[in-house]
């Protein structure tokens, strides 16, 4: 039982539907930026997206070929572990279902990896069934570098550190291997509705 904070009433922001805001989160109109290092500057002619690891044959798409893949428009609420949530964000990108159709695998896990060295781990289950995309547009515009452009992973049902910015590929793995923040004490799975912020939550 938490002690009452004397004199604290809170400022529940009226407009947001509370059923869309996970515990401990607040709704922001901003799009805050968080990252552990400098924003990488990869030019589009150097860019490719790769799926490798526990697959029959690795596959890689250069930028132009990636843009030619069937894309989807996604509207989703996103939730950052630093407590902000942003509702009705709009993206365009390629479903991970579409990408994984290009490989044969029995892997249950994957590590998404990015320019700059960032990694995050996910289960195949969490990125299939129309739950994850590699997004390259935000709000109808090319995704800005500080928000992860040219392309970022978008896994809106998990805390946003799982939506790796500057993503360049997926390594499919038979076992689960912690990624960057997962190795620094953040939760391995990161479901905002279960408030899985840190290890042991």
């Amino acid at each position, binding site marked *: 039982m938490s002690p009452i904070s004397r004199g604290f*009433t809170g400022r529940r922001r009226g407009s947001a539907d509370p059923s869309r805001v996970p515990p*401990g989160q*607040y709704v922001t109109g901003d799009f805050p*930026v968080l990252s552990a*290092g400098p924003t990488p500057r990869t030019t589009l002619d150097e860019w490719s997206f790769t799926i490798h690891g526990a697959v029959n044959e690795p596959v890689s798409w250069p930028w132009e070929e990636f843009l030619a893949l069937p894309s989807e428009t996604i509207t989703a609420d996103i939730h950052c572990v630093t*407590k902000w949530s942003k509702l009705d964000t709009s993206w365009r990108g390629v479903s991970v279902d579409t990408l994984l159709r290009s490989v044969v695998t029995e892997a249950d896990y994957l590590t998404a990896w990015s320019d700059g*060295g960032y990694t995050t781990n996910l289960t195949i289950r969490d990125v299939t069934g129309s739950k994850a995309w590699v997004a390259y547009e935000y709000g109808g515009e090319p995704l800005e570098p500080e928000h992860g452009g040219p392309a970022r992973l978008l896994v809106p049902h998990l805390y946003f550190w799982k939506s790796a910015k500057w993503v360049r590929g997926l390594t499919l793995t038979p076992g689960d291997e912690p990624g960057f923040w997962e190795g620094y004490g953040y939760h391995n799975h990161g479901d905002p509705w279960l408030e899985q912020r840190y290890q042991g939550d």
Partner: protein
Amino acid sequence: MARAALPGRLTWQPGRVVELVDETPRCKSLALELPDWRGHRAGQHVDVRLTAEDGYQAERSYSIASGPEDRQLLLTVERLDDGEVSPYLTDELRPGDELELRGPIGGYFVWEYSQGGPLLMIAGGSGVVPFRAMLRHWTAGQRNVPARLLYSSRTLEDVIYRHDLNGLAEQGAEVKLTLTREWPPDWQGHRGRVDRNLLADVAWPPQQRPLVYVCGPTAFVEGVAEALVDSGHEPSRIRTERFGPTGT
């Protein structure tokens, strides 16, 4: 009976406010006594949780300003006018009140002696908070690693820890201020934003491979990190922490 905490689990714990210090017109430091605190590393943060009488709760993260060796945990809070938690902490909170906290959180934006240096810290505004912790840790140790803080502030009045920074400088840390909006007529420090020119003046050259930490509002961190990379510093030697509303 209470369930035993899982090893490594971050449980909420009560902290008693023992002192409130006005740092600037907008920032206050909170000194806390935490009976169950298991220590932290310089650069880490905590989550603070407030509970209203009807059970409504709000959580926010704050950087730790005290060093690992300090007796009390110090948090410094900048009042955001449209904020929900910070105006409570800066305006309502009184010594003797209790807060719920959990932590420490984060393990990348930290500095310990074993990581070596030279240690270069670049702060914008209240981004200086984790660097106070790093400098406290630095002064508690052997000081055999060069440490330098470059702190960008709008005005002299907005400089947090002015007194502490003087003390840290007396103990051998290099503290360089740059004021971006206005400065006293006799101002001897730097003027203007942290750009490539100022970095060329203040930062160790890339050949010396300083370990660089940058903390501040997003636009500040983006600009400084880009200027560092453009000047030849290795991206992997640059660690960033960003906070605050994006509009600043």
